[in-house]
């Protein structure tokens, strides 16, 4: 006959009392473990959500970067280098530069080490009369792009125009009924149609391209050009850095950013990128605020539940000790010491704490997983499966449960030990 045996027998005899006490402990432990588990699950969910959003943002940013790169490839967002003395009002009105500059400027740029533009396209551009066809066209003398020697050479963006050939814009080719391979007279020369472009919806449709030296010869401007296009500019949108860099190399030029509508599109792309970033930051803030809210709630609820548990279990313990007065009096009469009586009462508290703590732990883990699953199914289920079982937390919860229960029962146990057995046995 020992204390554990007596404890189990007494529990079996007063099942309801034990169940009520264990339930209170289970609720307190469940709240404690459930709250911490829910917080852990919330953090895991946040990590997964943030990972998804970061991937999404990265995808958006990558798409934007690709769009911007392609915008460069469209020859739309480039820098146009003109002679310094070219009047821009006239340039925009006539769509070509009347002033000219040395063709060697291109080579100086290519050899200079500018790292902001990938290709340089020298051209001689004029609006001319095609006498044989009685058409006014835009004529561009081009020798293809000059690759930037400080960049890895790549496949040319713009195919050069071979000598004694002509490339036609869509409207020209269509209206003059010319196709690739046809021979045509152009300002007294016989040229072969090298290629016709598809419709672009720009002045390119009424443009013809010929070999630059042949254009220079036509206009008696050997070694002269009136424009250089810097392609695939990797400078900041405003082009300030590139402009400054180029103007440093060629002091007698002026640099113009081209395709403002594309710049506007780039602005909106960048804004979209910024918005994606801001959305990510908002999501982070929202999750952080949510966590703070949960923590604040926990900081209030957990202590309240613990206190309620201590009070309830203490009341039940006091009631139990009162109900066992005669039994305790008898044990004292039989010679059981006061400290042993305390052990007898606290042994039951230990059983209540362990039972309630274990039940509460399972309740806490299960409840938290269920709550998280309600919030966000897929992520929660994954998180729940990975984080549900936390032996350290269960151990801490069990210890806390036992501690609380013993604390609650301490005073009733002392009262039981100090009760005068003589009074009990006399029936007073």
């Amino acid at each position, binding site marked *: 006959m020992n204390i554990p045996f007596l404890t189990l027998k007494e529990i079996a005899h007063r099942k309801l009392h034990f169940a009520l006490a264990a339930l209170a402990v289970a609720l307190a432990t469940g709240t404690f473990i459930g709250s911490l588990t829910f917080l852990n699950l919330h953090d895991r969910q946040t990590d997964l959500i943030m990972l998804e959003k970061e991937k999404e943002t990265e995808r958006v940013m990558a798409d934007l970067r690709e769009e911007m790169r392609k915008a460069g490839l469209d020859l739309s967002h480039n820098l146009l280098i003109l002679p310094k003395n070219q009047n821009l009002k006239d340039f925009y009105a006539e769509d070509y530069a009347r002033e000219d500059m040395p063709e060697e400027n291109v080579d100086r740029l290519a050899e200079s080490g500018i790292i902001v533009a990938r290709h340089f396209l020298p051209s001689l551009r004029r609006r001319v009369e095609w006498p044989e066809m009685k058409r006014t066209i835009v004529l561009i003398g081009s020798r293809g792009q000059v690759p930037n020697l400080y960049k890895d050479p790549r496949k040319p963006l713009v195919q050069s125009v071979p000598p004694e050939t002509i490339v036609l814009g869509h409207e020209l080719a269509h209206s003059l009924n010319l196709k690739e391979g046809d021979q045509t007279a152009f300002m007294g020369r016989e040229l072969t149609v090298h290629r016709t472009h598809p419709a672009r919806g720009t002045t390119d449709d009424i443009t013809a391209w010929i070999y630059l030296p042949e254009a220079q010869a036509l206009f008696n401007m050997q070694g002269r050009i009136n424009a250089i296009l810097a392609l695939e500019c990797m400078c900041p949108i405003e082009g300030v850095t590139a402009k400054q860099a180029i103007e440093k190399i060629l002091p007698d030029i002026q640099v113009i950013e081209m395709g403002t509508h594309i710049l506007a599109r780039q602005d909106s792309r960048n804004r979209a990128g910024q918005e994606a970033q801001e959305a990510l930051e908002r999501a982070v803030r929202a999750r952080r605020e949510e966590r703070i809210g949960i923590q604040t709630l926990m900081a209030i609820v957990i202590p309240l539940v613990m206190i309620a548990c201590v009070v309830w279990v203490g009341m039940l313990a006091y009631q139990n000790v009162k109900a066992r007065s005669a039994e305790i009096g*008898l044990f004292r009469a039989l010679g059981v010491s006061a400290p042993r009586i305390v052990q007898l009462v606290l042994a039951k508290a230990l059983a209540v704490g362990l039972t309630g703590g274990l039940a509460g732990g399972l309740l806490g883990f299960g409840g938290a997983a269920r709550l998280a699953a309600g919030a966000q199914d897929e992520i929660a289920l994954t998180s729940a499966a990975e984080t549900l079982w936390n032996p350290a937390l269960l151990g801490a919860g069990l210890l806390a449960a036992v501690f609380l229960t013993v604390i609650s029962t301490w005073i009733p146990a002392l009262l039981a030990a100090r009760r005068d057995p003589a009074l009990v046995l006399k029936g007073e």
Partner: protein
Amino acid sequence: MFLDIKELSVTFKGPAETVKVLERLSMTADKGEFVAVAGPSGCGKTTLLLACGTLLRPTSGQILIGGEDPYALSPEQRGAFRADAIGFVFQQFHLVPYLTVFENILAPSVAKPLPTAEARATELMEKFQLGQRKDHVPSALSAGEKQRTALARALLHNPDLILADEPTGNLDKENAAIVIRHLRELAREGKTVLMVTHDESALDKVDRVLRLDGGRLI
């Protein structure tokens, strides 16, 4: 003298008044003696029994049991002494409600472990004709069976002093006679039996009757 009480006084100090329950009472009881203490209600019979049982410290005077003053011991020593030397039988039986007959008889082993406790409990169950009720809880027993269980419990450690407080108070005549007979046998076996009783029919079964009134022997 196995039980030697000298000038025993017990006074209770209440909020309103001080009550002298026992006043300078002296008595003795020898081994093998069956002594009854009789008297009207409130005369101090139970108080005398509890004082002899080391459960109620005298206000003054001395109680010697087997030559030892238990109130000179520490509470733990006194508890051990009580477990070893004294067996109690109460009017209300005071059986532990969730223990079986067998387990109730073993209850004193909580205070003082006994290697042969189970064998001793079995022997006592047979002695008091409780064998067929071994696994029954007190709520399933008759009053007579409960009291015989209490008697068996009191004898687990084979104490030298048996203190019985109105042992037949809740029993019918037949069961009362059985309990008295058992107490009589215990005295014959050499134990000192001190019984508090109202039961006049039991008084002719004892060796000596002490009458108490107003806290004094008359």
